[in-house]
């Protein structure tokens, strides 16, 4: 970036001198290259999973391998014994009360490690495993959630394809409803018209009946009026005579 700044500064300072030979500092900085090597810290080299092997918990295995060509298997042990005896006999290491206490402490530590070591190691492994299991479960839950979302999306898309069934059913329903309404209205209209016509008919019937009655009453009245007293007497006398005659006939008949 600095080289760009220098180049642009030189260009603005001397716009007429666009010659490459005059842009000394800019050229020098442009030719110096930065950041072309590989970065050293990445990728991080993998760490070994287990530590180096030790024998008796203290001495690395490489020491025994180092002495093996010259002194064989028992070499390091002889060396160790010799050193200890040398220190004791020359009183480089003095046996005091502290020695007894030290031996007791170290004996107790070795006993404790031998007895409780595996269970503690298993506990530590379980701790790590639990941590990993929790994270793994979170990851699986997230994956499952996304998978469920994808499946639901696919189902929704499939449903979209079958939408026309729904529309057909709805269309049919609406057509049926409209048909029913139309027929109902038609029927109502028919009933209304029939009602009006019935009214007219009943009015006519009533008028005719009234006229008939009126005529009958008028005829009867006039007939009754027209029967004068004289005709009435003559009719009654004739009826009596006819009745007497009929009675005689009736009397005569059963005798026969």
């Amino acid at each position, binding site marked *: 970036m600095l080289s760009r700044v220098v180049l642009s500064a030189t260009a603005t300072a001397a716009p007429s001198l666009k010659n490459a030979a005059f842009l000394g500092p800019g050229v020098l900085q442009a030719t110096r290259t930065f950041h072309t090597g590989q970065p050293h810290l990445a990728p991080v080299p993998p760490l070994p999973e287990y530590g180096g092997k030790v024998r008796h918990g203290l001495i690395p295995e490489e020491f025994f391998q180092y002495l093996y060509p010259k002194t064989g298997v028992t070499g390091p042990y002889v060396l160790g014994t010799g050193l200890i005896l040398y220190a004791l006999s020359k009183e480089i290491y003095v046996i*005091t*009360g*502290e020695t007894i*206490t030290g031996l007791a*402490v*170290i004996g*107790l530590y070795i006993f404790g490690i031998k007895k409780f070591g595996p269970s503690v190691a298993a506990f*530590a492994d379980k701790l*790590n495993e639990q941590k*990993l299991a929790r994270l793994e479960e979170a990851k699986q839950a997230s994956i499952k959630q996304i998978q469920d979302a994808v499946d639901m999306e696919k189902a929704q898309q499939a449903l979209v394809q079958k939408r026309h069934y729904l529309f057909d059913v709805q269309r049919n329903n609406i057509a049926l409803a409209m048909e029913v309404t139309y027929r109902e209205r038609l029927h109502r209209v028919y009933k209304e018209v029939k009602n009006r016509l019935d009214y007219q008919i009943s009015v006519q019937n009533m008028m005719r009946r009234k006229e008939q009655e009126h005529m009958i009453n008028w005829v009867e009245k006039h007939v009754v009026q027209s029967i004068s007293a004289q005709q009435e007497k003559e009719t009654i006398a004739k009826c009596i005579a006819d009745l007497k005659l009929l009675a005689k006939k009736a009397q005569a008949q059963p005798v026969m």
Partner: protein
Amino acid sequence: MNQNLFTSFNVPVILGIPLVVLIILFPITLIMPSNKLINNRLSSLQQWLVQLTLKQMMMVHTNKGRTWSLMLLALISFIALNNLLGLTPYAFTPTTQLSMNLGMAIPLWAATVFMGLRFKTKASLAHFLPQGTPVPLIPMLIIIETISLFIQPMALAVRLTANITAGHLLMHLLGDTALTLMSIYMSSSTITIIIIILLITLELGVALIQAYVFTLLVSLYLHDNS
């Protein structure tokens, strides 16, 4: 090597250079913080222990008291590791020196007292008078409570010093006894060695318990005054 019984409590100096600084700084090298998710077994166990202790200790405190978590956790780790490392043969235990324990106890106790006086003046002064005391006893009780307050740092320091020193002394004595008895009575020497083993077991317990007690009491003072 050891002229008398108390040479193991001399502060180690080589050619005038005090080694005690290195000895005090050593335990911190045993705690390995790492930024990896899965560590080796030792680091996992340390992390689990730290979590357990911290949760147990700081549950009772308010938010203000919990700002002391780092201090208290460092305190208990320091004391516990120093005590445990002092049990190895020929080791020097810094916590046997009264100077160091006073240096730990007085500033912490004073900090809790001053915090209480500054933020909750009335409540911290009210601690001098327990509830429900009969009226005639009040002056005497206040004097007694004041004395008890000022004895707290001394008690903290001297408790730790005395316990650890006593344990170490007893172990040295018994070791010398076992050595001397070995040339006279082999069997009583064996019995003495068994006693030493039992004592070491006790010492391990005492080492951890003392660390715990120290920290617990500081935490208690903090709780009263936070």
